């Protein structure tokens, strides 16, 4: 199987049960899916579990994918829904201190805080829909229209959520002194 096969050919191979295509499918999109899950859930272990669930659900429903539309937003929709379900199951409880941001790097500021940790903590303070909107827009670099398609809501709603997420994130980081560097 050619490495640069198109998405349609890749999906056809997966539907035919070709293990090589299934592996290539996972390897092609695992960074995107895992990144969204990790930003949303904050824990590497949870993110990997949910990412596996996302791929399993994708394989189960691959025959429903509309070949006229790009595959990436379709996968992100599954991932966003799974993350939302996981957060609801978690009861939106705050992440335990000892489990917070276990994926973050060891590089820390002199005062013991890490920019990435602060950033992730700021993200965790947002409402789930703001988080999804922010992560999809900035990390996955989707347009407002694509975010609206993934989240199945109007463009105006996405803009509103994105504006509020930016404002709350900026305010949180300012209060935490991130902008002092």
């Amino acid at each position, binding site marked *: 199987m050619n490495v640069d096969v198109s998405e349609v050919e890749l999906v056809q191979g997966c539907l035919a049960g070709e*293990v090589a295509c299934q592996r290539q499918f996972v390897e092609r999109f695992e960074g995107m899916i*895992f990144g969204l899950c990790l*930003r949303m859930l904050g824990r590497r272990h949870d993110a990997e579990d949910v990412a596996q669930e996302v791929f*399993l659900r994708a394989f189960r429903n691959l025959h429903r994918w509309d070949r006229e539309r790009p595959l990436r937003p379709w996968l992100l929709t599954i991932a966003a829904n799974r993350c939302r379900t996981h957060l609801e199951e978690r009861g939106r409880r705050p992440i335990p201190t000892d489990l917070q941001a276990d994926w973050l790097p060891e590089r820390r500021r002199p005062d013991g805080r890490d920019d990435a940790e602060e950033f992730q903590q700021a993200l965790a303070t947002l409402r789930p829909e703001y988080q999804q909107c922010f992560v999809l827009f900035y990390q996955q670099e989707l347009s407002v229209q694509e975010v609206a398609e993934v989240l199945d809501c109007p463009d105006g709603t996405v*803009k509103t959520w*994105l504006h509020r997420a930016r404002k709350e994130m*900026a*305010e949180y980081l*300012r209060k935490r002194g991130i902008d002092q560097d």
Partner: protein
Amino acid sequence: MTCLDFENRVHELLDHRQTELPDELSAHAAHCAACHDLWRDLQQLQHAVEAWQAVSPTAALADAVLQRLTVEFKTTADTQIVTTRPACSPLTGFMVLLASAAALLVALGIGWRFSSNATYANRQSSSATAVAANQPATSSAPVTDRQLDVLLHDARDAYVALASQAWQEVSTTNMLLPPADAATPFNVDDPAASVPETLSRPLAPYGRELRDAVDSWLQQVFQNQDSST
């Protein structure tokens, strides 16, 4: 331009991933401290986002997914095989039983119908006249083949029953009657004078006529039955 206008314009720019303020907005931020601080905070956020490190899963993620996928498909296939028979619900079983019973009844009905037609097809023409003569002409409704078969059945049973009963009567009577060529053993004018006790008094005077009549009637009955069968 108001501060609200400035904020909305800034967010629209960021929605389109533009990071430079137009001159109009820069002029407003230059003399508005609140809008200047807002723009500064948003720029810091933009820098933090750009520094957002790419994360990658463990190398075993693909293996884990493929392993779960294999187990799931295998489990699904096994489950489908195992649940083939239990998948039949009680309602389905009842419907199958009902359909079987209905099919059996239909088969029996068809078989009985063909059997009836084959058995009584020849009799319909020969016995139709006699049956019609025995049936009261009160009903003006047309008689169906099915009703005609039932009537032929009843008529046949009635003939056989009558013949059997008559034969028993004749047998009993013959035992009591004297031979046809024998002289009358009693005096008709005075029956009580010399009638043997073994003879039936009421039948004794009419022995020959009775026997001839019964024989004639039985011959007619048997002829009708032979022609019908």
